[in-house]
């Protein structure tokens, strides 16, 4: 009997009763505590301190802070830009997640049929992941540039001038342009994941189904997709989580939150409020509200995922 298998044994098989539970607890906690210490010390403790500061008026420079109670929170509720920014954050996260995964799924399906060059393709499309956001931001700002940008030049060359927009200057278009850059960066990553999932599905299933008379689309929808579900779930979760955190650098370099806050996301507005407006208390209040909203959604997601995996056993 191994230690870990003993630790994993269901409670009903306890032979030594509490000792086993204690063994499990010791091993489990011993292996988990380092992570908890780091997260506690460098993430949650600062968050709590941040909450304390959010109850004060502070410019981040002065030696003293002034107590203002919940005034910052009231100011945040009155701050139209903040709620706009929150909306943009969610639009960003959900939008890029859908785009990345649908695109990756389509590409993976196509790739699955390709005979050659698949390896090279996988390597190439993954490269944007390792590039620094500075280069990515500059590159795409210039691709979208109205005067010399590649995109408009291309559209003019193929006669599709009517499609030319103010890619980064039109408030209705700007956020979508920034989102498309995030999709460009990460799609390769998701293609790899989904392709791996597709390739582990034996082709016999496809064949058996087509013998039975099912059309290709039907096969895909009713048989392949359900088998892909765990992979897709993982891919969707990864992109959703990443999108919340990765939007700051991209927006900062490409638009700085403009035009007129059309691409402002929660993080850029919080950082702006901290370092430009010199209103650290209010910025911390914003962070807290953001954290709570996202935490609730996140916790729900985790519950769904662990419950599903639990029952699958």
């Amino acid at each position, binding site marked *: 009997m191994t230690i870990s298998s003993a630790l994993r044994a269901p409670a009903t098989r306890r032979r030594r009763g509490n000792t086993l539970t204690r063994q499990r607890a010791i091993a489990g906690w011993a292996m988990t505590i380092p992570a908890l210490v780091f997260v506690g010390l460098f993430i949650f403790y600062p968050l709590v301190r941040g909450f304390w500061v959010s109850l004060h008026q502070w*410019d981040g420079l002065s030696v003293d802070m002034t107590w203002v109670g919940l005034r910052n929170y009231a100011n945040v509720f009155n701050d139209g830009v903040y709620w706009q920014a929150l909306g943009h954050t969610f639009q960003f996260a959900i939008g890029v997640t859908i785009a990345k995964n649908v695109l990756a799924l389509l590409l993976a399906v196509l790739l699955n049929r390709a005979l050659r060059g698949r390896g090279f393709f996988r390597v190439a499309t993954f490269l944007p992941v390792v590039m620094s956001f500075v280069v990515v931001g500059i590159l795409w700002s210039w691709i979208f*540039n109205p005067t010399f940008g590649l995109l408009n030049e291309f559209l003019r060359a193929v006669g599709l001038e009517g499609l030319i927009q103010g890619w980064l*200057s039109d408030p209705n278009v700007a956020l979508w342009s920034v989102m498309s850059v995030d999709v460009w960066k990460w799609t390769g990553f998701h293609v790899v994941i989904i392709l791996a999932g597709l390739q582990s599905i034996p082709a016999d299933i496809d064949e058996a189904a087509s013998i039975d008379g099912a059309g290709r689309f039907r096969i895909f929808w009713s048989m392949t997709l359900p088998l892909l579900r765990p992979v897709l779930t993982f891919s969707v979760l990864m992109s959703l989580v990443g999108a919340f955190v990765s939007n700051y650098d991209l927006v900062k370099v490409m638009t700085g939150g403009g035009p007129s806050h059309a691409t402002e996301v929660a993080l850029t507005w919080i950082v702006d409020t901290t370092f430009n407006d010199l209103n650290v208390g209010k910025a911390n209040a914003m962070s807290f509200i953001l954290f709570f909203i996202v935490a609730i959604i996140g916790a729900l997601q985790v519950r769904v995922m662990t419950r599903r995996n639990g029952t699958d056993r």
Partner: protein
Amino acid sequence: MHRIRRATAAIGTVAVIAALTACTPSDSGGDGCTLAFLASADRPTAEQDAYKEVFADFEKEYGCHVDTTFEGTWDQITQQLTAARLAGTQVNLFITATATRDLAKAGLTMDLSQCIAPFKDRFLESAMAPYTIADRNWAVPMSSTDTSAIIYNADMFAELGIPAPTTFAELVEAGNTIAKAKGITPMIHQGKSPWYWPMWYMATFAQTSGNKSVEYTEDFLTGDRSFASPEEEQALAALAAFTDDGLLDRSTLDTDEQGMYAAFLQQKAAMFFALTPSLQNIEAAEPDFEIGVFQFPKIVDDPAVLPQVGGGPENGLAVASFAPEATKEASCQLIEFMSRPEQAAKLMEPTDPLVPSITSVPPTSTEPLAPQLTEEFIPNTIQFLDWIWPSSVNDAVTTAITDVMYNGTSPEDAAQSVQDALDKLKAEEDYTFDWWTTWDDAAWQKVSFPKDMKIDVG
């Protein structure tokens, strides 16, 4: 085998940890003769070396060593300063860019008036203005002084027979000629960046206010004047005319600094309004046509009103108030030393300054237009208004400008939105512009030099 590997790993880990935790002994500054200098790293090493050279000379003459730290970008100086204060790191002198007012308000920077009194005439007076708050000096200019100009393609103008415009009507006419002949947009601007819109307002408001823009702005901030007043509204309306009359188009909002340069260099635009460093950037890119500058056009008829534009020094030298007391006198001496003609020249030379802010430094700029800029533009240069008003008002002004220019907002509504922003700021954060009126003696004590200080004027 396992044991040897484990031992090597252990030794290696210890060595790495030792390397990682190594740090220089913190300067406790108890000794009156070690000073610390802090500046941003976004400057060429030649410039950094010039500082080190001057500090070496200082050490030779006064026996005080100056530690230099170059880190971060110019807009991070407030963070660097706060980080130093919280960590107990010594900072004596530092370079401030646009943050002087905020730092003074927070009590982080010293009142230099008493310190520089014996040698104040070394500094260009117009360059001192942005650092003068409540009739006291909080920093001294130690770099080139910038101004704003409309930079234009002189060859194209000559080809089309257009003289350099002096009034707005002439500018519109020039724009029409260019648009018709070349099919390009006459003017381009880096509209994508919000930081460069206020300078347009500064130029128009300087004229519509009868050259009282700084005074009116201060009154607005103290609550003695509403932003929704005729002069401000006229200034905004004048900006709307730039888009209405075909000088600037929507592509401006998409254009960043590089886009602006590229468009100008590829002759897809004939003019742009920018700060003088842009002129140096353009020339570094070796355009294949002749470049000229002209002042912002007159938008009011009154001949007594000057076409003033915003400008100011790039670097301000200041002293941190949390520097150890024993080192404050030496800090002032260092300022005096750095502003001596030979030393100041050494500091400024690597930057090819357009207009040195130390009067004794001869203009050595290789910029061919430097004499014209010094003679015509600098006298019409006033301090940047966005160094005076707070950030959220700046936000509102920028939005107001782009709204009247591109979104059809009326100047009255736009002006009102700026007033609303200030009112909101006051209600939500107890903002006071004239914070110096709320300071008591103890607060002033913290930022003042010792009364019995003696400075050697070399």
